[in-house]
């Protein structure tokens, strides 16, 4: 071991690194941005979950009960509807994760000591299910300062019932597997295309190609299409294993599952292409992919509940294709929703794809300068 030779290698590495500006930015950027983002964003203690409310009693007591539930901070009301059926439809569409139902005979039930209200929970997200359980702890006696009722003697437990839809056993696999389709597609699809164009530039193929009549759109779209097929194969493998090994249900239509996956694949491929037009080397392309991949996993709602994140981060996460895909795939597979009911997320993915593709084609110059 010759120290001088060893040192020469160290110095050379540092010099090369200094000239690779994107890598250098990543060295600092990844820890700073990701730490700040995730440190603030990831919150396993869920608060402010979107809830829908049906108060069919609409008495002073029922209103007080609902107010008490909201006061816990676990839920935030986004809609008031008239029937439990409407509420269940909203849960299926993914508009709310929790529903609070107060039946018309609330006052009688209170006096009789029966369950006075029902919490409906979207069980396709196990974290939401756990958080909703907190609502059951709201004391009923203080719900109304009604001295006639023998409420004080009634035990707290059991007065509010909870019904979890779609994954009542709270099996993690049911929650994870559909999301995993998205995570795996995000990782592989972005990387495939991110490298695709950079590689040709590195190998010198690009100079040949741009001297031919080939157009930017032909090149970009041609690069993307084969990977769509590869992505759909991956989707099939995960679906098959998920249903076979983990008994994950597909309540909705299989066509919708593939359509949603196809949308995510296109969105990710387009993003990869954009990265590819920007990166100078395959190494840089991989780093940029990673830079997108980490937030996708952590902020999309795959690993940590989306509802628990601050508003600002939620808006940021809305940019990520995986966020929308997770809503779609969980809706279709676990809640039996149709894509048409969740058109907003479909639209978001389509817009993302078109925007990225357009940017990539615009950014790709058929010139060397």
């Amino acid at each position, binding site marked *: 071991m010759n120290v001088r030779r060893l040192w020469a290698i160290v110095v050379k590495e540092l010099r090369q690194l200094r000239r690779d500006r994107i890598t250098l930015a990543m060295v600092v950027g990844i820890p700073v941005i990701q730490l700040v983002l995730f440190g603030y964003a990831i919150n396993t203690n869920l608060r402010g979950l979107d809830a829908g409310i049906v108060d069919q009693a609409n008495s002073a007591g029922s209103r007080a009960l609902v107010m008490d539930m909201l006061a816990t901070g676990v839920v935030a009301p986004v809609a008031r509807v008239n029937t439990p059926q409407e509420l269940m439809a909203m849960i299926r569409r993914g508009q709310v994760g929790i529903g609070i139902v107060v039946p018309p005979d609330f006052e009688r039930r209170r006096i009789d000591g029966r369950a006075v209200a029902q919490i409906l929970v979207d069980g396709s997200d196990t974290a939401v299910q756990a958080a909703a359980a907190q609502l059951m702890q709201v004391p009923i006696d203080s719900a109304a300062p009604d001295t006639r009722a023998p409420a004080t003697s009634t035990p707290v437990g059991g007065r509010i019932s909870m019904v979890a839809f779609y994954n009542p056993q709270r099996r993690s696999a049911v929650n994870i597997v559909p999301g995993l389709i998205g995570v795996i597609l995000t990782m592989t699809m972005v990387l495939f295309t991110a490298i695709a164009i950079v590689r040709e530039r590195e*190998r*010198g*193929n*690009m100079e*040949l190609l741009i*001297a031919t*009549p080939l157009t930017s759109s032909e090149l970009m779209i041609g690069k993307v299409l084969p990977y769509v097929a590869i992505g759909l194969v991956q989707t099939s493998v995960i679906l098959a294993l998920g249903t076979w090994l983990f008994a994950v249900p597909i309540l909705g239509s299989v066509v919708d599952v593939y359509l949603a996956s196809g949308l995510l694949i296109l969105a990710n491929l387009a993003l990869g292409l954009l990265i590819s037009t920007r990166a100078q080397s395959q190494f840089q392309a991989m780093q940029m992919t990673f830079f997108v991949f980490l937030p996708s996993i952590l902020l999309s709602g795959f690993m940590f509940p989306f509802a628990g994140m601050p508003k600002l981060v939620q808006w940021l996460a809305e940019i990520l294709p995986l966020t929308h895909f997770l809503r779609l795939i969980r809706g279709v597979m676990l809640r039996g929703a149709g894509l048409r009911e969740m058109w907003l997320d479909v639209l978001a993915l389509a817009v993302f794809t078109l925007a990225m593709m357009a940017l990539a084609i615009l950014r790709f110059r058929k*010139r060397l300068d």
Partner: protein
Amino acid sequence: MNAAADDVAIRARGLTRCFGKLVAVDHVDLDVPAQRVYGFLGPNGSGKSTTIRMLCGLLTPSGGEIEVLGLKIPAQADELRTHIGYMTQKFSLFEDLGVRENLEFLAAIQGVPKAKTKRRVDELIEQYHFGDRQRQLAGTMSGGQKQRLALACAVLHEPQLLFLDEPTSAVDPESRRDFWEKLFELADAGTTLLVSTHLMDEAERCHRLAILDRGALVADGTPRELTAQLEGRTFTVETDDPRAAQRALASVAGVLGVAQVGNILRVLTGAEGVTPDMDRALATTGHKAALAAAPPNLEDVFVAATRRDAERAA
């Protein structure tokens, strides 16, 4: 030997390209006659590749006008692309595709009609001697084979104009000779070829050539015209101590260059009539030295052109 003046494939006026502060190509005027092999001679970094890239529309010029095959470049570059072939300096075919696969791919990209593709690919495989290695991956071939394949791909769509950027820099002399045979065949068939090189023996083969030095065009003409200008200005010196003689001659005013070739010195003077001065300088070395006139070659042309330019710049 000169092509008719109206039969010009490439015309450039005041062609300039800057990269930041560096002026890579500096007000170059070019007239490349059609159906000839036109050479671009110059050392590395003289602006050959940059000029070629501008001429085929891959780089936007910082200034000047270009007309290639009657098309304004870069404005009509897209239109031009179907009529040109471009062989890059670095091997740019797909190394993980086979010979036939590469040819078929480019045939599709270049828009060779589907019905014609198979015949054309077969024809090229035959002509370029790939009959027994059609399936071989391009990445596993030798330098000469790669070069042949690159040329086959560049002429696939039968372009009117072919740009070759230092095509034989990684090729042995034998393959290089075969390669030039092919270039002349193409010129005979009506193709215009623009070949850049830093090798004198290659430049000598061109019908006509331009000499580039530090981005500027310093000479152009047929090899014969160019060497004829130096008649009477080139000499050889035979002596026991070439190193000492070289030092002595270099200090003589009017001597542009002294180069040692084996045991002989080659001397280039700026004008005729420097002989007495040189004789005197040689006498000071104390060794016997024989000064004799020699026919000028392209290397002399190159040295003369670049020195003159340096003097003008100084």
